[in-house]
């Protein structure tokens, strides 16, 4: 018995999702197919998206957004006009559930790759994070694996020193996805270290750890305000999100996510700006 007990503990500490009794699953023979079908359809959709959308696009004019909506769709057309006043360019990200993190990573490096000091600071943050994650019970070599590849990506971008090398690094799924995985871990660690605060924002009775295991760390899970708040603080990056939705009462809503707790609202200056349309984030650039 001793061995088995030990293993059960080991499995929790190494962040293993074990198989609890309370999950409804594919057990009853009748619903096996349903589960399988969902999975099939899901992978089909993912494949479609991967074939048709680049991970990250070149800058395009915000006026192109007009073509995405019907001419008679007044709500959106007005909002695009409003957006064009302030923002000149847009950079699309692939709609694979990782768009927020990918946009964040790209936006950050795009701003910083020529700034040796800030890049060094970021590497230091990564090192700190690695130690924190190991303290939180993560296996050291999986964390190392992720940070090694991210460091490699940063090296490549800095060596290239231009937008083209940034585009190249972020278009290679292996590197780009590692950056996403890294930012997910970063978010997760920050949430876990500030569990007492963030627990108030999780409504389905999950603990922060469970929330991170199900909603933050797995690839493809979409981001909500809680993820954004955490990552902006963790990486010390002031972030602005411009919301464009079907709300007819206002043109555009802007949300600022501060990098520190005591940031002054009136002098807030974002390092990265994103456009949010329900379920998706793209990067925005001012005039």
């Amino acid at each position: 018995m001793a061995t088995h007990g030990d293993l059960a503990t080991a499995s929790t500490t190494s962040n293993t999702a074990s198989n609890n009794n309370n999950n409804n699953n594919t057990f009853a023979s009748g619903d096996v197919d349903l589960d399988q079908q969902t999975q099939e359809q899901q992978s089909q959709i993912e494949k479609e998206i991967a074939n048709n959308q680049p991970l990250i696009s070149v800058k395009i004019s915000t006026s192109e957004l007009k073509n995405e909506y019907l001419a008679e769709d007044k709500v959106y057309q007005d909002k695009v006009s409003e957006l064009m006043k302030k923002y000149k360019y847009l950079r699309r990200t692939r709609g694979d559930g990782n768009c927020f993190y990918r946009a964040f990573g790209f936006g950050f490096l795009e701003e910083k790759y020529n700034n040796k000091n800030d890049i060094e600071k970021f590497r230091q943050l990564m090192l700190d994070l690695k130690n924190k994650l190991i303290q939180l019970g993560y296996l050291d070599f999986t964390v190392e694996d992720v940070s090694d590849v991210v460091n490699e990506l940063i090296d490549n971008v800095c060596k290239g020193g231009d937008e083209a090398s940034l585009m190249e690094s972020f278009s290679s799924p292996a590197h780009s996805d590692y950056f996403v995985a890294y930012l997910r871990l970063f978010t997760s660690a920050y949430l876990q270290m500030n569990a007492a605060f963030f627990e108030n924002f999780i409504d389905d009775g999950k603990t922060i750890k469970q929330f991170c295991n199900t909603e933050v760390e797995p690839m493809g899970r979409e981001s909500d305000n809680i993820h954004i708040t955490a990552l902006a603080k963790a990486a010390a990056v002031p972030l602005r999100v411009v919301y464009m939705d079907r709300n007819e009462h206002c043109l555009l809503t802007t949300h600022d996510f501060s990098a520190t707790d005591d940031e002054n609202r009136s002098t807030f200056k974002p390092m990265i700006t994103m456009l949010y349309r329900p379920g998706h984030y793209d990067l925005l650039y001012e005039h």
Partner: protein
Amino acid sequence: MNTDEGTQVKNAQSSKPRMNRIPNDEMAKVMRNPWDPLHSSDWDECIPTTICLRRIQREISSMLKESPPGMFIDTDPDNITKIHALIIGPSDTPYENGFFYFIIRCPPNYPFQPPRCRFMTTANSTVRMNPNLYQNGKVCVSILGTMTGPSWAPTLTLESLILSIQSLLSENPYHNAPGFTKERRLGDSKAYNETLKHETLRVAVCEMLETTNVVPQQLREIMIKHFLKFYDFYIDECNKNIDKDGQQMIDPFNKNCGLFQYSSLLTRLQQLKYELESNKCCNEEEQKSDFDINQDISSSINIASDRLSDCSIIADEKVFDNERKVNHNQDEVTEEHANDIQSSEKNLLI
């Protein structure tokens, strides 16, 4: 290009993606068994990135160096993304000292997608050893994406997967099944355990050892040593339960199970011991005479590590062509299985 993108966004918004490609036969097989490492032709088409191979290598080396008790892995000579895993049934469970063999395959973009895993100790798809280990080899574990619950994340490893599977082999597996937290009929869980104990001896001990070439040689050697070390345990179990012979086994998850036959198991175990020991005697004259299970395991690990580094050298080269061929052959073999599985699933429904 831009207008193209525009339409895609519209499509995404209406959440009706186009599906105009007709999957070929291979893809259909993959789609039918999206969990199955032996039907992974979709993965054979992509060459794993060097980053992916490096990660798999790291994981394998770390497990070969030090793996949790009761679990062993071996690499595949042709394909580094394919891993053979053996779990020895934990003590104080109905699976005690049984040999449970799994084939795991890592995707070409590992660790971003979960591996696929197939349970091989099913007596040709006839025995369901656990509510979460189906006859057809499907392993229901949330991190594999085969049941609801926490999903895969890049921080998880092959070891986390094997640990998660090992935790299925528990004291009262009846309660692993969703909706079976309470017994449906009094005594169900105990009766199920009795069945599993018998099937562990029959399928996960006798059948696993009686046929050679079921598992890679390294793992077979571990099994043989464990068998000989715990031979008395197996015999005791048979003697303790021999009065059940001729009674119907009870399995709430599989109506077609047979009768208890401990006396025939006893004969098979004795025969096995005789055969394995006479084989071992021949081998041992060449090797060292005193036999220490740990030492032997560590030596097999060294061999596996050597093989691993061989793999890595050729990994980037033409191996993938061969791999494709090998997998293709496997597909043909398992095609028959798939048919069996379907008919056995039908039986289940009836």
